[in-house]
């Protein structure tokens, strides 16, 4: 009791406020895990067939594309930018794979290096988007949206109206194989996750991304080469889009431009639902893994419950709005544009 006399009311108020803030931050941090657990329990109870080993394998299979896409987008969104090039670029990389392995359109037989070539294309286009965005000072959503459109055009031109069907037995081996019950493609996407985790937590690059997202001017003043970091982020995003395009192509075995269709919006949903804020600087790849799982199990569960696909996509929209509403800081000083 005596001690209390020596602490000033201001210091006490400050300490109280700090504790409150930390508690709030902790709740916000763990909220996505709670949401995941909630949906998991709910769907286990009401969606027939959800709680089965076979369905877990299905979920893991369906997780691969959104997870990889999300890993790329997380870094971009941490910067406070956006990358919408996934639809066109992912479609293009996918088409490219089917045209390079044994297929119904030409005599190519590159085997596994075909995947590498397609991923490198994604990487190169990512570099290009980053370069235009940074050097041209054009908003990232505009640049990447345009790039998506350009790459869709290239994708269609690559197969001239008649998509290639991949006939390489390698693809069937990949889609039907698994390690410890985890499908190969999911293993590949988890490897991308591990790489992203490493990049974010154990490299200077990761720290700089956070710093730029939090406050670009401060980061610039402290000597961070902001432009270079931004370009690197877009290269990484291009890489991830390339990988997701390749995974889609392996899964479908058909190089249609539609491969990339409807991959970007679910990925952005996953990033935001996971707790990464669209304004940048907060969140990270673990959040996005949780977000991708949430989006995937909801979609899977709704199909099992026989919910119409249009309602599914509407629900996705509702979820994104709720997630953003919960994650943004709506203090009096914040200006919303």
């Amino acid at each position, binding site marked *: 009791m005596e001690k209390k006399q020596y602490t000033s009311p201001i210091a006490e108020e400050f300490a109280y406020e700090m504790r409150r803030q930390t508690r709030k931050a902790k709740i916000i941090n763990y909220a996505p895990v709670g949401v995941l657990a909630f949906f998991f329990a709910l769907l286990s109870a009401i969606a*027939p*067939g959800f709680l*089965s080993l*076979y*369905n877990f*394998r*299905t979920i893991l*299979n*369906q997780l691969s594309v959104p997870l990889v896409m999300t890993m790329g987008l997380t870094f971009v969104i941490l910067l406070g930018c956006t990358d919408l090039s996934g639809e066109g670029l992912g479609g293009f990389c996918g088409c490219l794979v089917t045209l390079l392995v044994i297929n*119904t359109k030409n005599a190519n037989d590159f085997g596994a290096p075909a995947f590498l070539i397609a991923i490198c294309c994604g990487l190169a286009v990512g570099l290009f988007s980053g370069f235009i965005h940074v050097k041209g000072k054009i908003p990232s959503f505009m640049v990447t949206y345009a790039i998506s459109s350009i790459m869709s055009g290239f994708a*269609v031109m690559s*197969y*001239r*109206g*008649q*998509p290639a*069907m991949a006939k390489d037995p390698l693809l*069937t081996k990949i*889609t*039907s194989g698994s390690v410890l019950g985890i499908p190969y493609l999911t293993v590949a996407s988890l490897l991308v996750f591990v790489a992203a985790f490493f990049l974010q937590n154990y490299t200077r690059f990761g720290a700089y991304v956070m710093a730029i997202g939090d406050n670009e001017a401060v980061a610039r003043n402290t000597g961070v080469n902001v432009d270079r970091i931004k370009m690197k982020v877009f290269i990484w995003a291009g890489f991830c889009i390339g990988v997701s395009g390749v995974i*889609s192509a392996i*899964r*479908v*075995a*058909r190089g*249609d*431009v*539609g*491969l990339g*269709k*409807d991959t970007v919006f679910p990925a952005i949903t996953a990033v935001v639902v996971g707790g990464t804020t669209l304004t940048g600087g907060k969140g990270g790849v673990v959040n996005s893994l949780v977000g991708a799982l949430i989006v995937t199990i909801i*979609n*899977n569960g709704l*199909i*099992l419950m*026989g919910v*119409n*696909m*249009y309602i599914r996509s509407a629900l996705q929209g509702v979820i994104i709005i709720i997630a953003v509403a919960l994650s943004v800081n709506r203090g009096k000083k914040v200006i919303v544009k």
Partner: protein
Amino acid sequence: MKKIKSWSLIFALVTMAVCGAAMAFAAEPVTIAVSIRSMSSEYHMQYVAGAQAFVDTLPEGAAKVQILPCEADDNKQINDIKTLVASNSNVVILVDPNNAPNVTSIAEACEEAGVYWVSFWNTPEGITPLSYKYWVHHQTLDGEAQGYDIAVSLFKSFKTPGKGKILVMEGMMANTANEERVKGLKRALAEYPDIEILDDQSANWDTNEGLALMETWLAKYDDIDGVWSASDGMSLGVVQALKAVGLEGKVGVTGVDGFKDAIDAVGAGTMTNSYVNNGWLQGGYAAAWAYAAYTGKIKVDELDAGHRMFFTEGYLVTKDTYPDYIKNFVDNPPVYDYSNLDFCIKGPMPQ
């Protein structure tokens, strides 16, 4: 003398100019413009190939094919057509209206410019070629018959023919083609009471979505005899999902459109059937009709309703008809006799 000289010079120049213009006019080929959704669609490219096949039967230089892809954009389609008819009256147009409401704008633009045109697939209810002079005809396939035929062929292929459990994968909701095909399925179901529907959902005509939907269904149902899918695009995704669990060929899968890959799958036994739209026939005869109207060989306003709105014939490819299809459509692409314009008419569309 000088006067005669200059007059004869002028005369010579005018004659040359007139002859030149006449020659230029005669040499200018008729443009057969084909306005389609996208060059990425295999079916639409068949349609273009059909129009080209018709052009190839004409004397050289008489006509040429020009593709106007609208990339699923209503405004682009209308603008492209308006620009074309404004700059060139030496043209006929074959249109797959991106959306039914586009038809009225296209019809009015062509009517005003006096350009003959043919539509396929989409037309809004109540708007028919009969009220227009330059709208030669509207042709489409009988979607209900397609849905019915693929369903019956699927049901008959089951272990106990006519008895089994099926999943229904629909295309885009509220799309005319999808609704008609589903109507056909329902008619077939009424005739086969022992067929049970396990689930019915849409995969939006998309291969990826077809794959994901089938994967999830496989987690829920383990006793599936067949999948009634409304288009080849989705069916190919279904086949992939089945392949990943070693069920390809054991579960029947239907399709419509006649994609090359789907036909191959029917040949390989991983799909039960695919209903070929026969774009070659549609495109070839659409071009032939429009060209005949342009050259005055037929008088559009004298044609009866059955010649202005009709169904064309498709082809159901099953394991049994597959060799025949490969022989008559793939190895020897169909050669049609375009002098008999009625050949493509399967029957009149109900008014």
